[in-house]
């Protein structure tokens, strides 16, 4: 990402160091408690605090690409999770290990910050100690409580087992009725293929029978028929465990800790999984109903079939919503970094500011959450740096000395709006104009409207900071923010009142996976327009079209004039019609700008699954992604904002032509690392 994330590094290091100090203190407390009271469970609140510290180090380090640090803190987090769940004992050894982990984290942090040498061997040693949970110990402790926990049975039948009419499977099943079985077959006696006699039994079994209330007699009874031809040993589980030493974990949970997490994971509440399960249950019922109807189908069953299909559609939609909801996370995750950022920044800038956060529970797709984090931080920093005045200035302006910064998130019509608002000095239009003239974006005598000014601040390389500070205003700024938000299918709007504040609104899609679209036809190819960008569709006749001197076609829509984009011209593809009255014009709006798209035909509304083009190809201007239609062919999804930029003539400001002259594509100034092979 082109945002210079190094500017966050310092905050991350400071936060992490502070967190580690706290963690150390808590660990020492925990150790003290364990010492005085023996092995007691640690204070869950302390444990949670430690967990949070490690979690934010993990989050930060993976954001900044400190791989070692992220991997190590992940291991540590897993170990802490085990501790929290009681799968690991909070004994002296564990605490010691955790304290050594703190040292290791410090070492890694230092390495990431200054490039100092990392003590690899020691860290690897601690890492492997973290990876192996003290399950054996936990299991021992639990067997001590319940000594008779089951039986370890060794069953070595004689070779004539089958010939005597016995089936070992029957015996094992019978044992299964007594408790939980863990059976492993011993195949060491199997001969080579050519010496194999199908009627001879070469197998033996090691059986772990766990559960209570099985007497030695009951277990023995299962082997009654084969006792004379087999070798059977019975041992209580406890002894077996001690003798074996390599006991696998008693529960599935223990297993989990041995497996290193691969790929990103999501924590999901059980309620959500349950609801998913319910829907799947209904889906199965519907499917049964439909197959029954179809199996003996008579025309009279048609209504029943239709009912079934409607139900199926509803189930699938519910399932889809439910799966999407699993990927949703509250935006509070992003908020957590703000208070500290504000505090530090305010101190450095000598400003006073109150931060108000609301709508923490608003949920967004995990990917969106991850990718708006930096843009949001950037905007907040921007507000503090450029928006809010110093206490003295504020006093002079008759405002309270402490500025107010509000970040608010809420859901609105399939989108999440995140509003960043301050009560500062507002956008300085004169400064923006001058800066734009300097940068050659504007003619010296042009007087742009506020809306056009808002557009200007999102231009690459545009920064109004009169002196370049190290906080914001490095030339990479709002343009990158907007580019990031756009790549997520969202938009940024700004509004400002001089003297009383600025408000940025980020509009973000709930999910990146599925979209409601309108399928349209241009030439012989189907394209999709995101439904959210469509205002209306109209029929135009030639006499309603006028041409600006630069050749841009415009048409009147109620009070406004809108630019017309003929998509087939833009895409250089043959169209069915050229007469504007034969096709249809779809009025679209994005970032507050509107335009008419001329297409051949509207096909209909449908929900589509979004597929990335860039994973195997590269970015295509005017196209945001692709989707697969019902017949298996690919249809392209139009990027409305991109189309407006792609249009050879400016369509955004027909009333002030030449306000923002195009100097090549603004996109091309941002290098996309993914485009490189």
């Amino acid at each position: 990402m082109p945002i210079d994330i190094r500017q966050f590094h310092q905050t991350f290091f400071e936060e992490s160091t502070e967190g580690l100090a706290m963690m150390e203190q808590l660990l020492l407390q925990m150790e003290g408690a364990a010492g005085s009271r023996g092995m007691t469970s640690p204070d869950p609140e302390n444990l949670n605090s430690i967990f949070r510290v490690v979690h934010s180090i993990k989050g930060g380090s993976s954001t900044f690409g400190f791989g070692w640090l992220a991997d190590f803190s992940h291991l540590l987090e897993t170990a802490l999770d085990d501790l929290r769940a009681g799968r690991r004992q909070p004994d002296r050894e564990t605490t010691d290990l955790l304290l050594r982990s703190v040292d290791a984290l410090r070492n890694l942090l230092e390495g990431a910050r200054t490039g100092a040498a990392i003590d690899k061997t020691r860290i690897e040693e601690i890492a492997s100690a973290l990876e192996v949970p003290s399950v054996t110990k936990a299991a021992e402790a639990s067997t001590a409580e319940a000594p008779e926990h089951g039986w370890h049975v060794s069953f070595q039948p004689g070779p004539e087992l089958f010939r005597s009419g016995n089936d070992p499977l029957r015996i094992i099943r019978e044992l299964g009725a007594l408790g939980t079985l863990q059976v492993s077959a011993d195949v060491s006696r199997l001969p080579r293929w050519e010496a194999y006699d199908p009627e001879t039994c070469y197998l033996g079994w090691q059986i772990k029978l766990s559960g209570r209330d099985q007497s030695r007699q009951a277990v023995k009874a299962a082997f009654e028929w084969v006792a004379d031809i087999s070798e059977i040993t019975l041992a209580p589980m406890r002894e077996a465990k001690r003798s074996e030493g390599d006991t696998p974990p008693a529960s599935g949970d223990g297993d989990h800790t041995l497996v290193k997490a691969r790929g990103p994971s999501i924590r999901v509440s059980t309620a959500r999984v349950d609801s998913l399960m319910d829907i799947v249950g209904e889906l199965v019922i519907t499917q049964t109903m439909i197959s029954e109807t179809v199996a003996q189908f008579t025309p009279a069953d048609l209504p029943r079939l239709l009912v079934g299909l409607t139900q199926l559609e509803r189930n699938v939609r519910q399932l889809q919503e439910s799966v999407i909801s699993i990927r949703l996370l509250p935006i509070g995750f992003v908020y957590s970094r703000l208070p500290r950022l504000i505090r530090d920044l305010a101190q450095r800038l000598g400003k006073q500011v109150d931060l108000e956060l609301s709508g923490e529970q608003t949920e967004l797709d995990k990917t969106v959450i991850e990718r708006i984090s930096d843009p949001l931080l950037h905007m907040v920093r921007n507000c503090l740096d450029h928006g809010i005045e110093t206490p003295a200035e504020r006093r002079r302006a008759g405002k309270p000395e402490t500025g107010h910064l509000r970040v608010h998130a809420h859901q609105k019509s399939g989108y999440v709006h995140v509003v960043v608002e301050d009560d500062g000095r507002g956008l300085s239009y004169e400064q923006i104009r001058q800066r734009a003239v300097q940068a050659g974006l504007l003619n010296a005598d042009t007087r742009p409207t506020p809306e056009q000014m808002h557009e200007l601040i999102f231009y690459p390389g545009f920064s109004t900071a009169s002196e370049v500070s190290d906080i914001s205003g490095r030339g990479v700024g709002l343009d990158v923010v907007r580019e990031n938000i756009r790549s997520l299918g969202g938009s940024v709007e700004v509004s400002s009142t001089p003297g009383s504040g600025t408000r940025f609104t980020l509009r973000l899609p709930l999910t990146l996976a599925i979209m409601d679209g309108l399928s349209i036809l241009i030439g012989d190819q189907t394209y999709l327009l995101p439904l959210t960008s469509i205002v209306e569709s109209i029929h135009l006749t030639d006499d309603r079209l006028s041409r600006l001197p630069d050749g841009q076609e415009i048409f009147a829509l109620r009070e406004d004039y809108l630019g017309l984009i003929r998509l087939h011209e833009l895409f250089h593809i043959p169209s069915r019609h050229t007469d504007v009255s034969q096709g249809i014009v779809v009025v679209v709006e994005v970032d507050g700008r509107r335009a008419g798209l001329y297409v051949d035909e509207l096909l209909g509304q449908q929900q589509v699954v979004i597929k990335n083009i860039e994973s195997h190809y590269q970015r295509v201007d005017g196209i945001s992604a692709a989707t697969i239609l019902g017949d298996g062919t690919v249809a392209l999804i139009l990027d409305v904002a991109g189309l407006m930029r792609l249009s050879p003539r400016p369509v955004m400001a027909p009333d002030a032509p030449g306000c923002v002259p195009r100097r090549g594509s603004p996109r091309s100034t941002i290098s996309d690392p993914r485009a490189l092979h």
Partner: protein
Amino acid sequence: MEATHAGISPADPLTRYNSQFLVFRLGGQDYGIPILQVQEIREWSRATGLPNSPAYILGVLNLRGSIIPVVDLRQRFRLSPAEPDTFTAIVVVNVDGRLAGVVVDSVNDVVWFDPKQQRPLPDFEGHANRQFIEGLVQAEDNMVILLNMERLLSPDDFNIGNGLAQQAV
């Protein structure tokens, strides 16, 4: 494949690619691509056109849920266009994890080339297609051109090619 890389000059495609090549025909000439880069061969189907793309990018195709670009080698090599027939195939290649379909006239065979069969490239400086050629091999009775798929499919090249294609049009 990684192991065979070590210490061997990348200019020696035969050793580099385990010597096994998929040979296909295009405009009467045989070409070879390393078999390890071939993921599958599909019958020809019409791709969805991409706007404002180089002419030799026919568009994109749905490969079991992935969207992959389709390259027309005829246009890429400035050969005369041909209508697809029953022999026309799309060879799906995998270059560093990126998939692309390559339209060829027909697929011949998988051939094992002996390093002794390799012939030096004649000097034809400045030839536009030269950069895609990795080597020449003398097969039984004809010559096979070994292609460098990395270069042929690199996105940078798509862009360079864009300019060329537009000039050509």
